[in-house]
């Protein structure tokens, strides 16, 4: 179990790094898919089977396809990133990241402790899909409804932004 | 007028309403705007006149009080009231506003509706500031007043009007925001003390404060007021504002706006924080004295008439502050009288400068000379006003300065000795200026064609001259009206000093040093 976790974790970290490091956007995107998949694996290990599935379906399946679609639509080549400016940016970026990680872990290493564990949790033997479904439509009905509006807005928004050229001469003058 | 009528509110809001109506007048009504404005100001002045005889000088507290809840949850009230001090200053305001409006008839041709509307709005703001006895309301008027003045300077001003207007606004505001913090904090303290939130002045008067606590409050208030006065070295907005402002603006600025600062000291900073006052008073007095001399010296070398008068204001207002810091009856009365005097005399001076500026479009002293021959009436008026500004006995300036110096002397010989040299210096700069403008041969050909004072201008100056002499020869009616209120303030200051000190378990700090001459024991032994 632990070994599996380490494998997924390593895969996740490496793929994430490659997403950031790789020059070719398509490759980056593919690594991201891989990273998401690794994450799904970890979810499974954590007995979040439903999420693992959704992770694959939504992220690796839908979102990343969208990404790839866009990248290909744009026909992007390798990112050319040379010059002092880029180097400086990189240096600062990595340094900042390192510091962020450092301060974050320093704080957390002071001995954090978990909140109160839930005692009434139903036992989960074969996945938690049913439990999630139950909760989602009872306790979490309200946020669930919000997400529906959210997706509606996203749809409308995408249509507004990305539909064809301007129809009206005044627009975007 | 029945006393139940909101007389003070009428006084405050009538000009505002008139301003609104004026601003809403149709375009092309510029010509009649001045008439309507004059009418409004005249009505206002007429309605304010009973302030002269209806205020009972000896009656305690404020009179014609109007109190309406404003923001009850924080204890802010719309609370107006008047006493001898504010009544006189309000009269000065209505009077000088009328004068300024009539004085501006020919000088403002562009956008005159708006000009007069702003003047009237300014009048409303000033009256509100003098009448209100609620700290928050006071602050509202105090700041709101800046807007019309700012626009007057900025729109109808001279070359560098924008700089001057913005500087005026920001400088004054920078000072007053700290006062706002103090007010808010004071309100907090008051609420804890009495349990009832209130911005009412009386509530603050009734509250003892630890002397060490008072210092910061006092400094915050003093800073705000000192800028308005303006006290050296916070005065640099004044020359710019005066020079750039249109004549009417300068007149109002000098005549009334500067009084806000000294009035603020008298009404708020001093009685509310007496122990801090006792500590800071001598310092402020010395700064005031420095201002007297500094203003005079700098005025001496000004090439611009308005600037000269502006710096002379610094000097005169130094006298006002010195009188207040003397903390005795003479100093207070002198200071108050100097406020009125300065309002009349300096207002008249600015009007005079306006008169020649209107004709010659220059204010440089070097552009004039020998005017007596060309415009004798103007020169005579100018002379009288100059002498009043110098403080010649028989004119108003003398009585005020004398009482201030006397008051200062009673507190400290050195104050009076150094400050009195300002009397010499004022003669130097004013007479030198007068000489260069009016005496000598006519040096500029254009000046030969100057027209003398018109009938309207004579009518403007006549009441000013009457006041100059009246207040110089028989100032007692004025003194009678202000003194009880001043005495109460002084008494209140002393009481509160003792109250605060005892509440804090401290000994009362000694008053500023006195002359070692034994006080007058003789009042009875008079030779027949």
């Amino acid at each position, binding site marked *: 179990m632990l070994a599996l976790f380490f494998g997924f974790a390593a895969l996740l970290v490496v793929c994430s790094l490659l997403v950031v490091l790789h020059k070719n956007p398509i490759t980056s995107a593919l690594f991201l898919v891989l990273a998401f998949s690794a994450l799904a694996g970890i979810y499974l290990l954590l007995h979040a089977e439903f999420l693992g599935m959704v992770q694959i379906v939504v992220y690796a399946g839908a979102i990343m396809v969208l990404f790839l679609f866009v990248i290909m639509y744009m026909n992007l080549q390798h990112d050319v990133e040379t010059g002092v400016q880029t180097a400086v940016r990189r240096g600062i970026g990595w340094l900042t990241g390192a510091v962020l990680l450092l*301060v974050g872990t320093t704080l957390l290493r002071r001995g954090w402790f978990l909140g109160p564990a839930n005692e009434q949790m139903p036992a989960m033997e074969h996945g938690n899909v049913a439990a999630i479904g139950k909760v989602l439509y009872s306790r979490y009905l309200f946020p669930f409804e919000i997400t529906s509006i959210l997706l509606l807005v996203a749809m409308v928004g995408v249509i507004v932004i990305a539909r064809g050229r301007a129809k009206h001469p005044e627009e975007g003058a | 007028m029945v006393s139940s009528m909101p007389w003070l509110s009428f006084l405050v809001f009538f000009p505002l309403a008139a301003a609104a109506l004026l601003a809403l007048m149709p375009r092309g009504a510029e010509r009649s705007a001045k008439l309507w404005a004059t009418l409004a100001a005249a009505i206002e002045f007429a309605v304010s006149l009973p302030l002269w005889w209806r205020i009972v000088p000896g009656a305690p507290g404020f009179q014609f009080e109007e109190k309406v809840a404003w923001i009850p949850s924080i204890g802010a009230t719309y609370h107006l009231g008047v006493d001898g001090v504010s009544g006189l200053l309000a009269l000065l305001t209505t009077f000088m506003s009328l004068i300024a409006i009539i004085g501006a008839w020919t000088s403002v041709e562009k956008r005159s509706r708006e000009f007069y509307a702003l003047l009237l709005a300014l009048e409303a703001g000033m009256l509100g500031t003098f009448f209100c006895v609620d700290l928050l309301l006071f602050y509202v008027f105090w700041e709101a007043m800046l807007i019309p003045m700012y626009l007057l300077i900025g729109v109808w001003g001279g070359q560098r009007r924008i700089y001057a207007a913005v500087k005026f606004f920001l400088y004054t505001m920078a000072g007053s925001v700290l006062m706002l913090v103090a007010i808010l904090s004071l309100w907090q303290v008051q609420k804890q003390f009495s349990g009832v939130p209130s911005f009412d002045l009386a509530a603050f008067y009734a509250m003892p404060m630890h002397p060490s606590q008072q210092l910061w409050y006092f400094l915050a208030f003093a800073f705000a007021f000192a800028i308005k006065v303006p006290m050296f070295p916070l005065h640099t907005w004044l020359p710019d504002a005066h020079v750039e402002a249109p004549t009417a603006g300068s007149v109002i600025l000098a005549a009334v706006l500067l009084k806000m600062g000294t009035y603020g000291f008298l009404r708020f900073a001093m009685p509310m924080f007496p122990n801090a006052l006792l500590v800071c008073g001598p310092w402020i007095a010395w700064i005031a004295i420095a201002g007297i001399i500094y203003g005079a010296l700098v005025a001496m070398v000004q090439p611009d008439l308005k600037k000269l008068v502006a710096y002379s204001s610094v000097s005169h207002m130094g006298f006002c502050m010195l009188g207040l810091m003397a903390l005795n009856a003479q100093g207070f009365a002198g200071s108050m009288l100097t406020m009125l005097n300065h309002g009349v005399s300096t207002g008249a001076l600015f009007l005079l400068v306006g008169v020649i500026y209107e004709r010659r479009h220059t204010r440089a002293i070097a552009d004039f000379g020998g005017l007596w021959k060309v415009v004798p009436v103007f020169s005579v008026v100018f002379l009288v006003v100059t002498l009043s500004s110098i403080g010649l006995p028989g004119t108003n300036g003398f009585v005020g300065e*004398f009482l201030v110096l006397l008051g200062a002397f009673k507190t400290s010989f050195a104050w009076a000795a150094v400050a009195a040299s300002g009397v010499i210096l004022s003669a130097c700069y004013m007479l030198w200026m007068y000489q260069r403008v009016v005496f000598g041969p006519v040096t500029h050909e254009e000046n030969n064609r100057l027209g003398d004072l018109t009938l309207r201008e004579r009518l403007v100056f006549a009441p000013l001259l009457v006041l100059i002499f009246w207040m110089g020869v028989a100032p007692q009616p004025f*003194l009678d009206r202000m003194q009880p209120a001043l005495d109460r303030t002084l008494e209140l200051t002393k009481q509160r000093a003792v109250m605060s000190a005892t509440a804090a378990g401290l000994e009362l700090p000694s008053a500023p040093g006195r002359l070692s001459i034994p006080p007058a024991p003789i009042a009875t032994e008079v030779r027949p």
Partner: protein
Amino acid sequence: MLWIIPALPLAAVALNLLLGDRLGKRGTSVLACGAVLAAFGFAVRAVLHLASLPEPARHITEFVWTWMQVGDFSVDVSFLLDPLSAVMVLVVTGVGSLIHIYATGYMSHDQSFRRFFLYLNLFMFSMLTLVLASNYLLMFVGWEGVGLCSYLLIGFWYHKPSAADAGKKAFIVNRIGDFGFMLGAFILIAATGSLDFDRVFAAAPHVFSGPAGVAAVTLATLLMFLGATGKSAQIPLFVWLPDAMEGPTPVSALIHAATMVTAGVYMLARSHVLFELAPATMEVVAVIGAATALMAATIGLAQNDIKRVLAYSTVSQLGYMFMACGVGAFGAGIFHVMTHAFFKALLFMGAGSVIHAMGDEQDMRKMGGLASKLPWTHGTMLIATIAITGVPFFAGFFSKDEILHAAYASGHTGIWLAGIVGAGLTAFYMTRLYVLTFRGPSRLSHDAEHHLHESPPSMIAPLVVLAVLSIVGGYVGMPFQEGGHLLERWLRPVLESGEAGVVHHEVSRATEWALIFTSVGVALFGIFMALRSYLWNPSMATTLRARLEGVHRLLENKYWVDEFYHVTVVRPFVGVSEWLWRVWDVQVVDGLVNGVGYTLEGGSAILKLFQTGFVGTYALFITLGVIALFLHFLR
């Protein structure tokens, strides 16, 4: 009805202003002179009334209205007539009337005739207020009022820059004195609680006792004396008076000879109670008086402008008066004020007559031999000259002698000696003036010769009256009378109270005679020397001048006092002011204010640089912000 005396000229001023040019020259003359004459009439009436009262009751106060009453301090507008002010009011209205009449002739061709009389009446009002005031503050009103009129009248011909300058100088120098006056008054208020003469003097001996009290009264009197030096042109504030000769001559006669400049003496005499309490001040007064008398006399030796000679003579004579006050002989001082008013007014008016006749020429070097051309002027001037030089039986002799006697008698031998020398010098320069103007060969230009004419009767008549007074005016003060002479006895109710404070050294009759002979001898010697060097042997003056080149330069340039003041006071003041304005005010104080603005704008420009427009930068700052928050919690 005391108030009517100052009110009359004031009413004339008001009428003059109101009626304006409708008045005409004649109307103006009538109005102005009439008002002053009426005032004189009322004054005479009042004084007669005063004289009719028994001696202790000669003290009439008249309350008019409360001027100001603040706290425990109160001042009234109220007038006081007692023997001292009676003398002054008579002199002022009397000589004033004469000069008014004279001026109608003198100024008859001036464009600003009306304005002149307006000022003159205003001056009369102020001067009468000064002398009739019953308290220091009202006195101060007159005090400053005469200063104002002096300013206006000196600068009467305002188009002449020199006149305007002189007027301003007079006012400002006077203001310096007034500054002292005011501070002195403050001490009095602080000590006695009042400025009323009666109350101050009644309280003074009680309040100003002990070392602290003496110190206070010394300071007070010194400050008041500073005021007097300003008004009465004493060292160090005498510089304005010679310049004041820029004004029309009647003005010089009235203000700068007869009345205003003696206000200081009057004030000292009025305050003698205080001064006698402060012996140190008295010494100072005496020394300053003597020094002024001597110094002005020496300057007078070398001046060529007829009016300037008279001006320095005035300064010198005023010095005598202060000398008298300083040695405690206030009565002698007032006596000299009176006689001096007669003969000096006469001298000025005579000089005015000459100038008038000469077509506004004032340089004595261009005169000479006028005696025959201007007989009346010459005659009266001669009398006045004799009077001032101290020739016996003329007015000046009595008063000057009394002063010298008092100086000697009080033990101030040095002062006395200075007075004697001064008397000699006075005799010399006055005789020089007389000779250069009226005697010797004529040095007139052709034009002047042609223009020359005797003055109109309106000018001559006052001269004659004054000439008479210059002769007889001294007889009120005949020496060697038991119980003091007439004036002394008249003034006694006012002046005696304090006399106790001053020790009077009795001198023997013989010494007294010796003193008289000495002073007369010195005067005669001075006259003789002048006659010898300017009339009988004119070359001698030239030789003398050549021999004493340095001294002459020194005197001609008035010891360079003006220049000294200019360098040490005026220039530094203007310089400092310029610096204060251009550097301190504009650059430092305002620079700081604007500096705040510039700093903020600079900050704005810098902050704008952070806003690069790049998403990366913005994200970086967000991350840095998070890191900073972490660091905060890591504390």
